[in-house]
C-alpha cells in the first residue's frame, strides 16, 4: 500500500515536494488515477492532486477557462457544454481504456498525458488548447508558465513541455485552457466495404478537400459492422454541414456508396472509437502514431501476426491489440517514421517494455536535461518509463 500525500494548499505542496527532494524520496503525481496502469510498476509516494479542484475563472466570450488541475474532466465538460462550448481536442476518459470505470480522469491528468480524441485531427491536441498554468516544480518552488489569454508569445512556451510530460517536471495546480463554441450540428458519413488502403486513400481525399472534415476514422470488417466502415464527421452550422456533405458525396462517388449514419449509430461509432469497445477484451493495447500514408505498411506487418486494430485521425492513429513481440511493433512504427506507445499490458510486460517508444540518444539526453532543469533531485523519476533519470 503506497503512502499518499494530499496537499490542499500551494504551501503544503511546496513543502511536500521540497521535503521529498531533500530526502531523496520519489513522488508520483496522481489525479484521478485513470492512467496509473500505464508504464512500469513502481513504489513511489502518491501525491494526490484532488485538493486542487474547482473552477477559478470562466468567461465564455473570452474563450478561456481556468480551473484547478485536480478538477474532474467530466465536470469541466459539463460546465462548458452548459455554455454551448467545448474542449475542442475532445479528450477521452482513460478509465475505460484501462479496463476500469470512467469519471475519475482529471484535467491535470489529461494535460500530463496529452490526451486527445478523434477531433484532434482537425482542431489540435491538448497542447494546442493549453494556454497557461501554475505549478510547483521538483525544486519545491511555485511558478507560472504561459498566461490566461489565447495569444501569447512572452517567454518560453512552458505549457507545451508540461503537456505530455507525465508529471515528470512538476505538479500542476492550476491550468488555463482555450475553449471553443460547440458545433451546432454534427453529421457522420459512412462508406462501407473499403479495404485498408482504399480507406486511407478516401480519408486523405476527404481531408484534402474543402469539406473541412472534423474527424475521420476506419473500423475494419467485424469491428463495428459486418463490413468495414470508413467514417467522416462534419461539424458546424446547418447550411455549411449540408454543403460539405454534398461536396463529399460528389468527391467520393467512386470510392463506394456514401451514406449518412443515423444519429444514434453515429454516436455509437464515435463512442466505440473513443473508448475502444471493440478492443476492450484485448490484454495488450498499443497506440501507434504515424503519417497516414505509412499506416498501411504498419498494418501489413502486424495483421498477419494476428493484430486487431482501429484507425483514427485519417490513418494517423492506430489502436492496436497485439500480443506479439513489442520489438516488432516498435520496429514497424519506427520504419514508418512514427512511434508506438504501450497503453495496456500485463504487469510482467510493462516491467520490461518502456511505455513510450525510445528515441535517438541525443533526443533522450536532451529530454533528461530538460527534466533535470525542473526537477534536479529526480523527485518525479519513479521508474515508470524505464528510461532512468539521466538518459545520457
Amino acid at each position: 500500500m503506497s503512502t499518499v500525500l494530499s496537499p490542499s494548499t500551494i504551501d503544503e505542496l511546496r513543502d511536500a515536494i521540497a521535503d521529498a527532494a531533500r530526502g531523496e524520496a520519489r513522488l508520483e503525481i496522481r489525479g484521478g488515477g485513470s492512467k496509473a496502469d500505464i508504464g512500469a510498476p513502481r513504489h513511489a509516494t502518491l501525491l494526490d492532486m484532488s485538493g486542487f479542484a474547482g473552477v477559478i475563472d470562466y468567461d465564455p466570450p473570452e474563450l478561456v477557462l481556468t480551473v484547478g488541475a485536480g478538477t474532474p474532466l467530466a465536470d469541466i465538460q459539463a460546465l462548458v457544454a452548459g455554455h454551448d462550448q467545448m474542449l475542442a481536442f475532445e479528450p477521452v476518459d482513460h478509465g475505460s481504456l484501462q479496463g476500469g470505470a470512467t469519471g475519475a480522469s482529471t484535467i491535470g491528468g489529461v494535460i500530463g498525458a496529452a490526451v486527445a480524441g478523434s477531433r484532434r485531427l482537425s482542431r489540435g491536441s491538448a497542447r494546442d488548447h493549453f494556454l497557461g498554468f501554475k505549478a510547483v516544480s521538483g525544486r519545491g518552488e511555485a511558478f507560472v508558465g504561459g498566461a490566461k489569454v489565447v495569444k501569447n508569445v512572452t517567454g518560453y512556451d512552458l505549457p507545451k513541455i508540461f503537456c505530455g510530460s507525465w508529471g515528470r517536471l512538476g505538479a500542476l495546480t492550476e491550468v488555463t485552457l482555450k475553449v471553443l463554441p460547440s458545433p451546432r450540428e454534427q453529421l457522420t458519413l459512412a462508406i462501407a466495404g473499403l479495404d485498408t488502403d482504399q480507406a486511407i486513400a478516401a480519408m486523405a481525399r476527404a481531408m484534402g478537400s474543402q469539406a473541412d472534415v472534423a474527424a475521420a476514422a476506419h473500423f475494419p470488417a467485424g469491428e463495428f459492422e459486418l463490413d468495414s466502415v470508413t467514417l467522416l464527421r462534419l461539424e458546424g452550422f446547418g447550411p455549411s454541414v449540408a454543403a460539405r456533405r454534398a461536396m463529399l458525396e460528389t468527391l467520393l462517388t467512386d470510392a463506394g456508396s456514401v451514406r449518412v449514419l443515423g444519429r444514434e449509430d453515429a454516436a455509437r461509432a464515435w463512442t466505440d472509437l473513443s473508448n475502444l469497445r471493440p478492443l476492450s477484451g484485448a490484454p495488450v493495447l498499443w497506440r501507434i502514431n504515424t503519417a497516414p500514408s505509412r499506416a498501411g505498411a504498419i498494418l501489413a506487418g502486424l495483421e498477419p501476426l494476428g493484430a486487431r486494430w482501429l484507425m483514427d485521425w485519417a490513418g494517423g492513429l492506430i489502436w492496436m491489440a497485439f500480443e506479439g513481440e513489442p520489438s516488432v511493433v516498435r520496429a514497424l512504427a519506427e520504419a514508418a517514421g512514427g512511434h508506438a506507445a504501450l497503453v495496456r499490458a500485463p504487469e510482467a510486460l510493462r516491467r520490461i517494455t518502456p511505455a513510450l517508444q525510445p528515441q535517438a540518444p541525443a533526443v533522450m539526453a536532451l529530454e533528461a536535461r530538460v527534466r533535470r532543469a525542473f526537477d534536479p533531485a529526480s523527485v518525479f523519476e519513479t521508474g515508470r518509463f524505464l528510461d532512468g533519470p539521466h538518459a545520457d
Partner: protein
Amino acid sequence: MSLKMPPPDEAVLVRRKAVIAALRQIVPGEGVVEDADALRVYESDALTAYRQRPLAAVLPETTEQVCAILRWCHEQGVKVVPRGSGTSLSGGALPLADAVLMGMARFNRILEIDYVDRIAVVQPGVANLAVTRAVEARGFYYAPDPSSQIACSIGGNVAENSGGVHCLKYGLTTNNVLGVEMVMMDGQVVRLGGRSLDPAGQDLLGLVVGSEGLLGVVTEVTVRILPKPQSAKAALIGFPTVESAAECVAEVIGAGIIPAGMEMMDRPAIHAAEAFVNVGYPLDVDALLIVELDGPEAECNHLVDEVEKIALANGAVSCRVSQSEAERLAFWAGRKAAFPAMGRLAPDFYCMDGTIPRRRLPEVLRRMKALSLEHGLEVANVFHAGDGNLHPLILYDVNQEGQLDRAEAFGADILRLCVEVGGVLTGEHGVGVEKRDLMPVMFSEADLAHQQRVKCAFDPQLLLNPGKVFPVLHRCAELGRMHIHAGRLPFPDLPRF
C-alpha cells in the same frame, strides 16, 4: 536609449581574424562576410532603433556547415546570433559586437510536398508566402500569415512562433508545425517531432517554437498545409463607440462563430488608413470592425448574415459586405496599410504588441488615451479583436530631442497596462531585446529562473543569442543550485529511498 547588451568579450574581439579564418575553413567563398560595408545589412532587424555591427557574418548552406560552425564556436567560447530574413519587430536578430551572425537565407529550398499527408518539408530560409505559392496550384496553403509574409522566413516564424490575422481560427506557427531538424550550440543534431501528429516523448518541439533563437538553429521544418477554403467574405462595420464594437465581437463569438479574421481599428487608425488607400472606410465612427468568414459559400453567406444581425443589434452605423473578391481585398487593404499609413502622420512610429482579455478593451483604450496625453505623443490602435492582441502605434519623430525615449517609455507603460488587466507583453512579435527588461512585470524571479534553466539544458554556456528575452543573464551553475527552504515539515512521515 536605455537598452544594455552584454558587454563584448575583448578576448573574442581581438581574435576576430582567427574567427573569420576558422569560418572560412567551413564555409567557402562569399559565405563569410567580414567587410564593414557588407556587414551593414546585418546591423539590425525590423526594430531599426537598435543597431550593432556583428563580429562577422556567416551564411551556411548545409546542416553539416551549421554543425561545424556551432561546434567550433562552442569550443572557442564565441557567441552566435541566428538570423532568418531579419523582419523581427522585437530585435530578436540584433547582432552583438563579439558574436558571429549566422544568416540562414541560403537554406532556401522546398524539399518535399506530400498532398496525401498534407505536409511540406522546407528549409528554414524559405519565405512564409513561398510555401503557399508552392502548393496553391493544388488548392492548398500554409495558414500562418504574419504581415511580413512576403519576406519573413519559416525559420524565423519557428523562432518567433509567428501568428497573423487568421490565427484565431487557424492557430500560430506552433499549431502548424509538425517537426524540425535542429542543431544545438554544441553541434549536435536533433530531430524533434516528425510527420505524425504527436511527439514520441516530451514535446521539445513545442518548447523550441517561440524560443527566439536561444535553444538551437533550425535547419529543416515540416509544416502542415491546409486546403484553401472555397470562399471568403468580409464585412466592414462601423460603430459609434469602442464599447459597442467590443460588445459585437463578444456576441459574435457567443453565437458560436469563429471568424477567420476579426480586426478592429480606432478612429485615428481609420483616418490614417483611409487617407492612405481611399477604400471607403467610414470616417464618422469611433471603431471599425473587419470580420472575415471563410469556408463553403453556403457557410460564408449564412454567417455573414448572422454577423450583420449582431452588429446592427449592437448599434452599428454602417455595415458593408464584400460583393466580390476585389472588394474583400479592398477592405483589408486599409488595415494592412495601417502601419505605413502612420508614416503620413509622423516621421516614425513604434508598434506595440500586447494581448489583453477582450472584455477589458474599452478600459484599456481609455487609459491609453490618458497615457498619450501624459507622454505628449499620439497613438493609433489596430487590434486583432478576436484574440485580444493589441497593436498600439505610437507616433514620434526620432529627430526631435527626447522623442524616442518618450515613445519607449509610453510603450512600456502600455505593456504594463496590458499585464495589469490580465494580459501579456507580447502576443506575436516576441520579447527580443525590446521587451526584455519588462519581463519582470509579468514574471516573478522564480518564473524567469524556471525558463532560464530550460535554456541551460540546451546551451549551458549561454552562447546562442545571449542578451535576448531574459533581463538578467544568470550563469547556469548559479541557476542550478537548489535552495530548499527550511520551513515546517507537514509530511514528516514521507518514506525515503
